[in-house]
């Protein structure tokens, strides 16, 4: 009895000690918190404030309340930018997911020179986007580009690539696929590495073939990792900027003007920082909405 009380007292002292420590640990976070507030939280709040003004850089500044948002929802140029972004994102999510899954399954097997092959495969995602965009721009050249020569070798007609409004978005998606499939591969490969081996042994004993093992063991166990990769890929595809900007600057005309490019032009080419801030807010809402939707899917995948 007495020892019980002593024990519980000791336990209480222990929790108290921990709580005290927890308060001390807060000091570790203070410098980072200051920086995060200055460069992340402050911009978020200030953007909301600026979005309520008709604010022209170096010019007029006038309170318009929700005026910018009203203008935005009736601006057909913005509407097209949203549509293009969704089209681009759809392609730039589905294709890397397919290739990334295939690559992850390939790299999960053991084969000679696997380490080297994997390193080469992830090089595109680490490379400087501007440098990558430059090389692709040269390869897309309609007369002298190496890609049209490749097409001619397999008997296909030459393409105008990024120089035609019809082909510009699929072409930019091609660069995005090349650039970011490795990240999908890595995320799924990490999932594959963490799968337990016992179910496969049991399935083998029960006489399952390779396809059945994949369909009924790998796929369900891998699903959560695939969904995480899907969420990350969707967010990154929505945010794509560097390669699009360097290769086309939104052109030809406005044929590749996504939300991010529209935002950039409004803010730093036309200096409409008030209007551009409203774009930021709406863009952020779109990203959060899609991320939440995918997260919800993830919960459902987990539940089944």
């Amino acid at each position: 009895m007495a020892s019980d009380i002593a024990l519980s007292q000791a336990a209480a002292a222990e929790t108290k000690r921990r709580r005290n420590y927890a308060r001390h640990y807060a000091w570790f976070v203070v410098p980072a918190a200051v920086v995060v507030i200055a460069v992340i939280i402050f911009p978020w709040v200030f953007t909301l404030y600026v979005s309520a003004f008709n604010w022209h850089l170096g010019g007029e500044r006038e309170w318009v309340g929700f005026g910018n948002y009203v203008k935005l929802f009736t601006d057909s140029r913005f509407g097209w930018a949203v549509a293009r972004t969704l089209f681009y994102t759809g392609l730039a999510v589905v294709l890397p997911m397919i290739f990334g899954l295939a690559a992850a399954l390939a790299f999960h097997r053991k084969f000679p020179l696997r380490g080297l092959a994997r390193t080469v495969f992830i090089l595109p995602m680490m490379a400087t986007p501007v440098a990558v965009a430059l090389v692709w721009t040269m390869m897309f050249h309609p007369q002298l580009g190496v890609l049209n020569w490749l097409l001619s070798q397999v008997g296909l007609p030459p393409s105008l690539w990024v120089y035609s409004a019809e082909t510009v978005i699929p072409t930019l998606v091609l660069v995005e696929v090349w650039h970011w499939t490795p990240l999908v591969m890595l995320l799924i490969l990490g999932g594959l590495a963490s799968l337990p081996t016992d179910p496969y042994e049991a399935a083998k004993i029960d006489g399952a073939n390779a396809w059945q093992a994949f369909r009924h063991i790998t796929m369900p166990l891998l699903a959560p990792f695939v969904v995480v990769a899907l969420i990350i890929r969707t967010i990154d595809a929505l945010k794509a900027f560097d390669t699009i900007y360097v290769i086309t600057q939104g052109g030809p005309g406005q044929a590749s003007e996504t939300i991010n490019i529209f935002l950039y032009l409004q803010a730093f080419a036309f200096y409409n920082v008030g209007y551009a801030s409203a774009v930021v807010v709406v863009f952020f809402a779109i990203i959060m909405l899609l991320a939440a939707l995918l997260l919800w899917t993830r919960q459902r995948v987990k539940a089944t």
Partner: protein
Amino acid sequence: MRKLKRTLSNAAFGVSVLLLVSPAALVFLWMLSLSLKNELDNTAFPPIFIPDPPTLDNYREVFARNDFLLFAWNSVVVSFSATGLALAIGVPAGYGIAKMRAMRAAALILIARITPGLSYLIPLFLLFQWLELTGTLVPIVITHLVITVPIVVWVMISFFEGLPAELEEAALVDGATIWQAFRYVAMPLARPGITVATILAFIFSWNNFVFAMVLAGRETRTLPVAVNNMLTFEQISWGPLSAAALLVTAPVLILTLLAQKQIVAGLTAGGVKGA
């Protein structure tokens, strides 16, 4: 028969691996090829693949013009400062968040990663103008913290959470302060995590384009901005352009080759990527 089937399936597998890897390899090799050929060979059709004879003239031209060395120095200063500062504040923060199990702080870091980098630029641009800092490297370093701090904090949270708590607790029982427990027990154990965070933060800061693109003046361009300007404004030919592009991305590619294990570990842990 079975042996033949096996050989065939191995061959098919080999071909598919080759198909997966070759786009990555070929683009970089083409970049190298363009940078080692003269203008005549670069614009030949059908294309000439192997430079014969290879020439370093393009590299010479890059170094001779465009203040390339100045911009390289700017890139070095910005990436090292942004990475160093992020480590100084991010490693303790990751430790604190892991110890306090402050999931809300972790979620905030995640949202920062989700937000497009461009969206930080308008308010920070106005702020720097008001502070009269535009035209120096300071605004560029500060905005790069938007990328490096979340990467470092995120990687370090997962690393510190994975460390066993017993060693630090033993140190605390022996009378060490929590700062000492962090500095002399937890931090040495987390060195692999710090390496991962350093490499990733450096690479994504080095690669960043849009922050410097908006904030840099004539003298404060970083390499990605300088190379983009060569394409859009200066209309220089393919050879020097490829040489410059290769020089910009070479440090990152070499780092990837040397530290691919750490990079893979870091990226699979959190799926971190620059804003």
